[in-house]
């Protein structure tokens, strides 16, 4: 039973990847759609997509760091 925390970390990492994957996927899909409809606005769309993408990535990375902390510190 003393290794139960590893179980939680595994599930948690999976959830992080699912969440980040859905987020990045939706962003990329919408951006691609927008550029396909309006190719001349591609610069603006890319600029608008960048910031939320990085913030999202930051949240996912934070989750992974805390998962790692659970493993290292129990």
């Amino acid at each position, binding site marked *: 039973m003393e290794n139960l925390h590893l179980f939680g970390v595994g599930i948690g990492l999976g959830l992080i990847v699912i969440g980040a994957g859905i987020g990045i996927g939706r962003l990329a899909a919408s951006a691609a759609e927008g550029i396909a409809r309006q190719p001349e606005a591609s610069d603006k769309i890319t*600029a608008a997509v*960048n*910031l939320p993408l*990085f*913030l999202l*990535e*930051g*949240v996912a*990375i*934070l989750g*992974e*760091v805390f998962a790692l902390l659970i493993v290292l510190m129990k």
Partner: protein
Amino acid sequence: MSTAAEQSHTAGGSVLDQVGENIIRHVSNSSLDHPLIQLPNIWGIDLSVSKHVLMLWIVAVLVACSVIIPIRKYLQQDKPQPKGWMNVIEAVVKFIRDSIVKPNIGPKFTDTWAPMILTFFFFILFANGIGLLPIFDILGAFNRFILDIPAAPPGVEDHNFINSLLHGGATVTGNFNVTAALAMITFFAIMVAGSRAHGFINHWKNLAPHGLAWPVYIILIPIEIIGMFVKPFALTMRLAANMTGGHIAILAILSFMAIFAEMFHSTMAGMGVALFSVPLAAAISGLEIIVVLVQTYVFTLLSAVFIGMAINVHH
């Protein structure tokens, strides 16, 4: 399997036990009890030179030699005309100023904050990039095979300079303390930027939007104060975790060779796994090059965005 594991335990721990420790030693700083160069405490601050401090110096010297000195020389000319390396620097500087600083901070304060953002960019770019070069591992091979100095057995502290450098090729920005220091600069830059644009008192008033019903402020003000600290915290974690994560992935995949060789008790198993893990590690190293560039861009972009948020208040 169990008897084999027991046998190898008596011989100093199985490979599986060593792998995790080895990877952590690779990405973390050298232990504080045995730094590379022992220096005395001054005002309670340990000034000893550890692995990451040495890398920090190397990065500083490289940035000075390849960016600061050429620009100084260039500016001293009578009729400055960029050629060769200066063209590269100029293109990078122009990109940062025109597509990161100007759109986010605004034309009025571009010249005020562009130098700081550029300093961030060059320092982080060099620090991230050097982390990818396995220079210390090459030094270690030289030490081991040409100078014939063996590595200390596990549990014994190593006093050979190169051996204690080993498990290196360290990424300075993979250390949370370094990125925390960088994010602290952003944290104070946000305050300075807001104070210079709106005055000290108005900067703090600008944190929360004006003209709302008072019960909203009970929730809003704590959120804004937390947000103030979360911004640099997220910057710290993002850069350090990204730089550490890639290295851990590469090392874990390379460690498969040792793990499989032990699991099947044959060298051939390890060699067979090498056919799979070495190309994969090479591919991840290629991915790491992109990550290095993207994370440098992200840190500078987000710093510019946060400073711009204090200057161009929307509400």
